[in-house]
Every structure is written in C-alpha cells, then in structure tokens.
C-alpha cells in the first residue's frame, strides 16, 4: 500500500488570474513510513494534502491512494455536541453502527495513552488545546486509516506544549506504525518525526529535495548529524544559517 503522486499540478484562480500553486510534484509515502512535507508557510502544502484527501482533484498529474486515509487537520473539528468518546468513535459509527460498542471500549482503553484519561465523557469545549489535538489524533486512529495525513496538527499550540506533543506523537507513531504524511513548516518537527523529508519551495510549490533522516535509516540521531542536516535544509530553503 502506498500514496503516490506523479507530476501533480494545481492552479488557483485569483482575481481572474490563474496562479500556479503546485508545480510538478512527485513523491510517495510507503506503508509504515513517516514522510514530512516541509516548506515555508503558504507554499501549497495544505493544497497537496487536500488533493490527497480527495477534497478536490489536481489539474495535472496523478494521485494514487491505496488503502484508507485518516485525517487530522489544523482545526480539530471536534463536534461540540458530542462528548469525547462519541467524537472519536464517529468514523466507526458512520461505517458500521453495530461495531460502535466495541469501538467505544477500544477508545476508552486508549484514553490514558492519549493523555485523556477520565475525559471520555467531556465535551470539546471542556478540553484544553493540547487535549483537543490528541483527541483529534485518537479519532484518526479510530478511523482505522492505513495512512494518517497530519496537517500541522500542533500549529495552534504554544512552543512548550508543542514540544511535548511532538515527542508524544513520535511514541504513538512507533506504537501503531501507520503510514504518515506530516505537513509542517517546523524543521525540528520534521527531523524528530519523519523518516523522510520532502522539501518544498515557496509558491509555486516544487519538490526541492528528498532527504532521509537518521530516524529513517533506523539510527539514533547524534546532535552533530542533526545540526548538519538542519543547516542543509536551511540552505536549500534559502534561509540564512
């Protein structure tokens, strides 16, 4: 199973002008691997993700998705009238209502792992930002996708919470090893979580490079190597070191 993009192009219309937002992007995400799409804000990363999720088709090229997709967007999109368990089990409920009781039990068992113990009956408005993000990921897990598409899931959180959650997410990925496509503009986040980094240019979004991280080679990262890789990424993105 894999997600495969071949020469994908996308245009948007702005004030009667056709603007190229995605230019000839090809890459693939393998099952059980974590690929990061790393690029500056507004480069078209989210547009790529939206096309992979099937929100709208590309104008050129091909997107093949084998297997099912679980989504996790910048907004948690939890439904305010459902409690946490009802929210995370909604994908199961939609697919097969008879599987709901079992799913609720399963989700309840995952609550501690997601830092949500005792909050199964809480409503989204009662959760903190970090908890809502984790709930959103639990929903992605419960949706049972072979691939998790994560669009800057921690974008709205403060730096401290974010760092904790990145480490936590790494643990979650190691435990459930789904295929992951992580969208981020945070170099450290990409280095921490991804096996492979697809570096994207500012608009129109082009593939600058595909880099394998130490994590992707199954090695423990040493600080020197990470620093070198980070410098390389900054150079490719055209950011002064």
């Amino acid at each position, binding site marked *: 199973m894999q997600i495969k993009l071949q020469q994908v192009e996308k245009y948007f219309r702005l004030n009667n002008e056709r603007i190229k937002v995605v230019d000839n992007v090809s890459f693939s995400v393998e099952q059980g691997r974590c690929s990061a799409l790393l690029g500056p804000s507004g480069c078209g990363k989210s547009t790529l993700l*939206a096309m992979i*999720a*099937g*929100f709208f088709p590309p104008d050129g090229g091909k997107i093949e998705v084998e297997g099912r*997709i*679980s*989504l996790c*967007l910048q*907004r948690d*999109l939890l*439904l*305010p*009238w*459902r409690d946490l368990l009802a929210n995370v089990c*909604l*994908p199961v*409920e*939609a*697919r097969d209502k008879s599987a709901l009781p079992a799913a609720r039990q399963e989700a309840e068992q995952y609550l501690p792992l997601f830092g949500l113990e005792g909050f199964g009956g809480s*409503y989204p*408005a*009662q*959760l*903190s*930002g*970090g*908890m809502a993000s984790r709930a959103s990921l639990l*929903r992605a897990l419960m*949706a049972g996708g072979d691939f998790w598409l994560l669009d800057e899931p921690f974008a709205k959180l403060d730096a401290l919470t974010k760092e904790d959650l990145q480490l936590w997410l790494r643990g979650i990925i190691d435990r459930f090893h789904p295929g992951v496509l992580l969208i981020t503009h945070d170099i450290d986040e990409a280095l921490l979580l991804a096996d492979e980094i697809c570096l994207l240019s500012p608009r129109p979004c082009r593939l600058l490079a595909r880099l394998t991280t130490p994590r992707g080679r199954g090695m423990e990262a040493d600080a020197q190597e990470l620093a070198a890789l980070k410098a390389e990424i900054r150079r490719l993105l055209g950011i002064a070191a």
Partner: protein
Amino acid sequence: MRRFKQTDMLYPLLGVMLFLLLWQAAATWLVAREWILPSPLAVARAFAANMPLLLRHSLYTLGEAAAGMALAVLLAMIIAWLLSLSQAMRKAIYPLLLASQMVPIIVLAPLFIIWFGYGLLPKILVVVLICFFPAAINILAGLNASDAEMLAFYSTLGLNKRQLLFKVRLPQALPYFFSGLRIAAVYSVMGAVIGEWLGAQAGLGLLLVRAQQSFDLPLAFAAILAIIIWSSLIFLLVALVERRALSWQHYLNSEKWRV
C-alpha cells in the same frame, strides 16, 4: 445548567412594579377617566371578572397561533432547504421571500378573508406569514454554518451525504433553528390577533374590537394582558425545549478550565 439566581427575578419584578405604580398614579390623578386610561387595578378587576370569557376566546387565538406556528416552521424548513440547495435557487427565491415581508399584513389580512372566509384559515395564514420568515432565515444560516472544510473532512472520515446531514449539519443548525423559533413564538399570538381583528367569530382579537367599540377599556386591556401572558408562556415553552435539546451548549458559555 446555569444556576438560577434570585436577582434574575428581582430586577424584572422591580421594573414592572415601578411601571405599574407610575401607571396607577397617572390613571388616578392625571387622567382620572376609566374610558380613556384604565388603571392597572381596574384592568386587574376586569381580568378577574371576565376570566371565563377571556379563556374561551383565548382558546381560538391559541389554536390559530399554534397551528400557524407549526405550519410556519414546516414551511421555513422546506424553504431553507430549497435555498441551501444552490446559489441559483437562492437568487430565485430570496426576492420573493423578502417581498412577502414587505407587503403590510394589515392589507393582506382582509384579502385572506375575501379569499378564505371568516373561518380559522385566514388567521392561521396571517400567523404563518409573520412567523415563517425569521424561522426560515435562521434555519438557512444554520444549514450554512457547517463550512466546506468541515464537511470535506467528515466525508473523508467516511460519512455519507445522509450521515453528514444528520450527524453534522442538522445538529449544527439546531441552535439557529431555536433562535428562529423563539422569534416566531413571540409573534405568533400577535399574528392571530391581527387576523381576528379584521373579522372573526371568536378570539381575543374579536374581544378587543368589541371592548373598544363599547368603550370598555378595562376589558380591552385585560385582553391585551391575556395576549402578553400567552405569548410569554409560548416563548418560555420554546426556551425550555431549547435548553433541553441544546444541553451541550452551556459548556461553550461556561467558564472553561484548561489543563
């Protein structure tokens, strides 16, 4: 639920008391003629003395208001659904809707009587005409409250069109629906009274006309009091149902505690 505080009742009561005192003083010393301005006490006496009469006429008015409101909400739902289908549909229907609210009811009601006679139907139609618009506009706003990203997201999670409607769009529209319903509730009894005013065999509107024509102002004011009481009760009923149906909403307003 929000705790009910004693001051919640205190200030409205004080306001009403003050108003009644001023009114009583004005009626007693300033005007001093009951057939021009009856005092609150005179109105209360008339209300108590004519209770059976008021109740009998109220039944007609309330029946018209209830039937009109039910029809109005049904019509509002259908119209809101049609409008939410497509831009073209919205553009085609919206001017007609607006126009329906611009024609003075006082002009339309007599026409209803010419077309449909002196029975209940023309009164119910007046209520429908007054009530459906705020309900329809609010329901439409509610149906549009689910943004495109949200719907795309949930359809990717596996919800089909029907499930999107029942599990996402309709629950999201419910608070808007109740806002519309509350406005409709306030106007429903008034609508029925306007309908009766222009020709009826029974109802508070007819009672009002008769009382005024015989200069029995205390009775006229008693009828007005009855209209206010019934309108308030219907409003309260809607608010009560709303509170039960939207119990999750108070978490949005209550103080959040963050971990």
